[in-house]
């Protein structure tokens, strides 16, 4: 009798294949989870900065919206972990007396961005809203 105990080559290879698949899938899931958690944290930072900027842009005179600086006026030190990042504000008149203010934060070499839009209406009087 050639063999009484032990594993054949096929058995060992099959076991190794299964082990490799399990480990690879576990690692892939772990890496993907870490990546998504990081992206979520980055997005939360970006939207805090966007909301703060929106508070400033709400209070600029309607007529002066177009000439206000095209980058964020508010403090962006919160976005330090996203460096290098860029902030952009664009204003577009959609109809008489109505302007869309679009605020954007771009990071990760422009591969990721977060946007927040604000509609401003010319009330004719107070520029509070």
């Amino acid at each position, binding site marked *: 009798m050639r063999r009484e105990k032990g594993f054949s080559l096929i058995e060992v290879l099959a076991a190794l294949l299964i082990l490799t698949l399990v480990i690879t899938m576990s690692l892939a899931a772990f890496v993907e989870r870490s990546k998504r958690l990081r992206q979520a944290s980055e997005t939360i930072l970006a939207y805090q900065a966007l909301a703060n900027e929106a*508070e*400033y842009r709400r*209070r600029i005179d309607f007529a002066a919206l177009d000439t206000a600086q095209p980058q964020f006026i*508010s403090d962006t*030190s919160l976005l330090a972990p996203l460096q290098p990042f860029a902030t952009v504000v664009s204003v577009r008149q959609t109809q008489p007396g109505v302007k869309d203010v679009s605020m954007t934060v771009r990071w990760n070499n422009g591969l990721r961005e977060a946007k927040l839009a604000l509609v401003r209406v010319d009330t004719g009087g107070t520029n509070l809203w």
Partner: protein
Amino acid sequence: MVKRRTAGYTLLEVVVAMAVFGIFLMILGVLTVEMRAQEKRMPVNFLRHPQIVVVISKLRRDVQDAFSANPYPEVFREYSQSPKMLIVQSVQESGGVQTIVWDFRTSGEVHRHAYNVGVSTDWTARGLPADFSNSIEVDAVGIPGRPWGVRVTARDGEGRIAIDQILQPRAHQ
């Protein structure tokens, strides 16, 4: 006949096993280093903590409903404005104005005292992370010609800004 080996592993088997183990160790090491670098770069995400989300949401509502000629009185009863305490006069659902004191002085806790015609209603959030409680600050922020709002900032244990939110009163008629 001399039996050469009855138990144990050959050198080749040990080397292969160590090589496989070494590869796993290397992968684990790379992942750990990457995670550590990530942790150092990003602040702690306080906004994943349900209690903190509730505190910020309630605070936002109180500030957005701030109302009166001076919505942030310097002193109220035994309380006075400071980075660890916010006093705000806020509209309530009945239409009246109540004075609300947000107290961040106790580590791990946030207290909200609402005073309405001498009657106080207290609400407390407990179990907050110590680094959040120790770092949160509430400061009035001014935009020229506009009602003053409140800027809420909090840093994690490493001093990185984790929360920075500007809350502004909304118009009431």
